[in-house]
């Protein structure tokens, strides 16, 4: 491609005005995304009530104690469901971006000076917000109805914080990556919700890891959800629950390693697979 030299191009203003900062635009996107989320009332109700309903069902069905631990099954579920709430970003972004791609949102934004990073920042902050609210609700209900004891040690809350942040980041990036898989926005919820449900069953959200066949837990170990749940069990079940772990330890070092690897791997996946256009768009 050679530069055009025959006619002078339209002159660029000598002092071009400063572009709005990417951070400011990211926050502006986050505010807009959050506003749009709350206006879809059906989605809001579903998003926030789903984990609560699951907790209510599982917590009520399995109200027995877990032998030799002094813990109840419902406490186990609180930890597991917090894990799956932390992974909400996978589903939200996977479906949300596929729909944005399909309905022209991405195309419109690509035609504006909005930097792509600001778009992703908006999605990520929105996800962080939704996940935080879900976790807060689960904790409140766990404490109020299912004998959940909140840890008092600062170190436990630190563990909670890094598991939560790494978990949200990793699953959001994974969500962005899988958003390129569905062929259309309409098929997105089916394509993306299915693997998420399967992952929840094999990662110890609904069924304690101890009761799963080993080959299934080995598959689950590839994905971040199993490790997030393990980290949250460490926080909320504490020493009493260690005997429930197949490894007889919460393996926090390994949790950090796998979640960290998913953040990096998810980022690489995003950068290599992300498409602004839908497939039919060429």
């Amino acid at each position, binding site marked *: *491609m*050679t*530069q*055009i030299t025959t*006619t*002078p*191009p*339209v*002159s*660029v203003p000598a002092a*071009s*005005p*400063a*572009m*709005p900062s990417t951070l*400011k*635009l990211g926050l*502006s996107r986050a505010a*807009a995304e959050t*506003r*749009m989320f709350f*206006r*879809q009332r059906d989605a809001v109700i579903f998003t926030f009530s789903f984990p609560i309903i699951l907790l209510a069902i599982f917590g009520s069905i399995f109200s027995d104690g877990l032998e030799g631990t002094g813990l109840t099954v419902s406490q186990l579920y609180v930890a597991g469901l917090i894990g799956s709430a932390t992974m909400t970003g996978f589903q939200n972004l996977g479906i949300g971006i596929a729909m*944005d791609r399909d*309905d*022209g*949102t991405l*195309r*419109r934004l*690509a*035609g*504006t*000076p*909005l*930097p792509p990073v600001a778009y992703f920042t908006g999605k990520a902050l929105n996800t962080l917000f939704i996940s935080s609210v879900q976790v807060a609700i689960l904790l409140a209900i766990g404490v109020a109805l299912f004998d959940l004891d909140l840890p008092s040690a600062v170190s436990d809350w630190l563990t909670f914080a890094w598991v939560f942040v790494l978990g949200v980041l990793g699953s959001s990036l994974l969500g962005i990556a899988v958003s390129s898989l569905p062929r259309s926005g309409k098929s997105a919820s089916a394509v993306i919700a299915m693997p998420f449900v399967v992952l929840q069953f094999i990662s110890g959200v609904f069924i304690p890891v101890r009761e799963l066949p080993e080959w299934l837990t080995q598959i689950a170990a590839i994905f971040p959800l199993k490790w997030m749940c393990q980290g949250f069990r460490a926080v909320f079940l504490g020493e009493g629950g260690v005997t429930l772990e197949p490894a007889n330890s919460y393996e926090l070092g390994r949790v950090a390693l796998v979640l960290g690897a998913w953040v990096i791997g998810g980022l690489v996946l995003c950068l290599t697979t992300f498409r602004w256009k839908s497939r039919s768009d*060429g």
Partner: protein
Amino acid sequence: MTTAVKVRGLTKRYGDVQAVGGIDLDIGAGEVFAILGPNGAGKSTTVEILEGYRRRDSGEVSVLGTDPGRPTREWRSRVGIVLQTAGDVGTMTVRETVRHFAGYYPLPRDPDEVIERVGLTEKTGKRVSELSGGQRRRVDVALGVIGGPELLFLDEPTTGFDPEARRRFWELIQGLAHQGTTIVLTTHYLDEAEALADRVAVIARGRIVAEGEPSTLGGRATAKATVRWAGGSVETGTPTRTVMELTRRFDGEVPELTVTRPSLEDVYLNLIES
């Protein structure tokens, strides 16, 4: 005349299909330029390359002095795009949407003023999803011009409009053109091109087959006129003389008299078939 868009030898191929087969184009700053052509003729591909949405295979392209194959934020802030279809931004209100997009630009126009210009002041508090098709299109235009672009792309802007909405939309575009915005318009409506465009180009089979002012395109101004009356018709280069003869023959009023020159549509259909 400064050049807003300059294209030389543009080509683009999809697999076996040569979508654009060597296009040259010059669009002056401040011009309203319409690109006509049947579906699949390379019209959309060409415009998408100019908009920076699509990469070209070869050729030189300069839009506002920048290669759209390497769009920068600064360049994007000087170009407005009104896409063909958009089903997004449904749950935000008109004002929220326009204000939000204004934040993307270094020197945006006043959101309320833009909303007024597109005629949506009364709908400003309504959610975009509650608007009619024509009103949503106005939101699209508002978002296209909120950054105060020097160059505005309009892709089939009035498809699905009723005739009155269409006229009002034309006035809006004419207003923008009067303010000096360069406008590149694609359309299937020949009357739209005739009403809005200073110049038109007809693209067929990946090439420009005619280019010029709507009134003279394809030799239209000098083409023979058809004089029709009850009981006869004649094609002639001197229709006035024919009418005078008829007036004499009928001794006054000629029954069902019409004099027509080929419409832009006639010329267009001729061009894309040949």
